[in-house]
């Protein structure tokens, strides 16, 4: 996903450690991550770039919203589309070390127009 330089940050605002995996398929596709203050984030593996670099989309997430995601009440795409803080981060990580290499921060309304997370993906299928 190509993001305009307008949204690129000259620092790395998030220092996150993975605390839970919601979808692991040989690689950690969808994870729950946490900063030193205990705030949680939802993180989606978008793609790999050359040189062992992983590109991830990251949004802050509350416990209530996380439970809604886990129970299938909201889709993964919507979890990113409707970020509670109206911000979506895109980060490049060195796969070998976990160091953040580059960061972008997009307003939700901008991200909504380019959201690459597939439609209809729920962690649990709703029983109708």
């Amino acid at each position: 996903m190509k993001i305009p330089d307008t949204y690129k940050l000259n620092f790395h605002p998030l220092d996150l450690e993975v605390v839970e995996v919601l979808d692991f398929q040989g690689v950690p596709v969808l994870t729950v991550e946490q900063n030193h203050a205990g705030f949680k984030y939802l993180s989606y593996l978008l793609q790999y770039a050359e040189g062992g670099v992983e590109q991830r989309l990251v949004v802050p997430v509350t416990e209530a919203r996380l439970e809604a995601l886990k129970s299938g009440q909201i889709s993964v795409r919507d979890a990113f589309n409707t970020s509670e803080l109206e911000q979506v981060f895109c980060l490049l990580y060195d796969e070998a070390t976990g160091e953040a290499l580059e960061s972008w921060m997009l307003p939700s309304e901008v991200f909504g127009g380019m959201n690459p997370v597939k439609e209809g993906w729920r962690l649990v299928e709703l029983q109708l």
Partner: protein
Amino acid sequence: MFKNAPLPENCPPTSAHQAQNELRLYRILNGNVLDADAFLTYRQLYPENKRYRNLCVAFAVSMFTTVESALAAYRASIERNKILGTHLAELILQSIDGVYEINSSTGHCSFWFYESSKFAEIPCVQIVQIDENT
């Protein structure tokens, strides 16, 4: 007790359990040789990655419950510019090999091997080259 110890706290999770009977699982390999390198965990692949140092699943061997789920993960990974491997092994795991947890939505299985389990002795039904067009 488990390979790759020390594991993070509360790992494997209490929800992980031994197979009651033979458990048929599929593992994507880099090559057609079933040695210790064929069972590397994410943690072993990226030991310096600080983001996964306490993540229990990263200390498990990644497998799949069906050929279809393995190929789905393979294809999804290709779309992300990552090749998970070249071959698919069909393995028979026993209760003495370790404990496991399955994600029923994706068919992914995290398997934590007991230290006593011997990779070379795990029955292998077949190893086939993955056809990228399948």
